[in-house]
């Protein structure tokens, strides 16, 4: 038996998994994440 790591991290619920690919919510997240990334880019240049 290979020495696998015992993983007991929390698993996402069905609701969380649904929201990860729920289009209207992801459109909002798309805008938000882009904003976060632009902040990092602006801070780093």
């Amino acid at each position: 038996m290979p020495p696998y790591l015992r993983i007991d991290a929390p698993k996402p619920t069905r609701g969380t998994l649904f929201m990860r690919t729920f289009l209207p919510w992801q459109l909002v997240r798309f805008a938000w994440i882009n904003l976060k990334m632009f902040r990092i880019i602006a801070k780093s240049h």
Partner: protein
Amino acid sequence: MARVVILGAGISGHTAAAFARKWLGRGDEVTVVSPSPTYNWIPSNIWVGVGLLPKSSVEFELGPVYRKVGIDFKQARAVALHPEGTGSDGRPAVEIEWTSSGETGPRERVHYDFLVNATGPKLNFAATEGLGPGGNSLSVCTADHAAETARVFLENVARMKKGERRRLVVGVGHGSCTCEGAAFEYVVNLEFELRRHGVRDKAEIVFLTNEFDLGDFGVGGMTLRRGGYLTPGRVFAESLFAERGIEAITRAHVRRVSPDVIEIEQLNGSTSEVAFDMAMLLPPFTGVGLRAFDAQGADITPRVFAPNGFMRVDADYEKKPYKEWRAKDWPRVYQSPAYRNLFAAGIAFAPPHAISEPHATAEGTPISPAPPRTGMPSAMIGRAVARSIVDMIGGAEGPTQPASMAEMGAACVASAGANPFTGTAASITVYPIVPDFERYPEYGRDQRFTFGEIGLAGHWIKILLHHMFLYKARLRPGWALIPE
């Protein structure tokens, strides 16, 4: 008139060349020396490696692009630096060996006023017996490697469709590897593709890593603000594996890769074997083996390069224990301390030390990640070095543009499944890349700018970045407006 020579046409070298050409006058020359005729957008090799993209989607010919903008391109590898010239000819020069078809072998001496070493890494598969495409495992480090990996992966999928069970191992092939993030990205993409092919139940997927904990990624991990908590990135990485049913072996050094078995050693001193049907294991990196000589022809390589082959720059290379590592140990302008007209950018510069806490077995086998230098910092360093050189040509006393990895952030999008409606990716930002515990005593990073989230939006961003950065690399109209 000045001549800037850039060794390497990867993310850092190509960025440095493009900006140097843009900022210098037409009377000045920019020359790129690279052994490969193509540019490879390496972050998308992951998708080539699972058969989603052909390798032509992540590569293009450099020659026409450089001709268009007036960059001299020599398809050759650099073999020796002569920063003081040779004999009575005091002009600094680099000796190159042509690699273009029909011209392999002839050497030429290329003189320079400023030289940027952006040669990237040597993929050191030889560090582990049996590792690599020439041995018993696969890689996604180059587009060719990734295409071969896709072929083997799809063969395995076909066998699973016939009912066979397969064990697929993904990770790193040595205790001192870097790029754990790329291996992580590949394993979750592979898992997603197995589901898409309808054979997930036939596969046992194992992630094999030298990280002390999952989610370290060679940057000492990160603490993410999510759901009202500041949570270690380890929890998010483990959660993704728990959700996807991916097994993990951490704190591991690969001793040997046989045709169907990987022999590993772990930090606690235990040894074991992991049987596999397919193994994609990334290699450790070293410098490309450039030598340096003074005017009399004496070998001065140890003055210019660190023992691992990467180039010494303005970092603090004094050996000190982990507790005494400081953000200011990291280089700011990437200038050689030995020669003012010599710079290193991207993976080619020698880091002062790792970022993750070092660990070794009782017998002394080091098992901890080397520091990564991913696309964004590599490109930003390339651009900063170009700015400094252009300013020095214009009369500045020294480098003008700092770009320390301890003072810059990084935005990273790690694909976790490529589909425009069901795919996901982890979008991560960290600031700074190298933790600074003097400025941010608790976690080493500014938590306002350190963020992570998994979702479809990340996948859209990944697609956008793929096209945007390839557009930029092709130096099409407006390329300079796209940030690194």
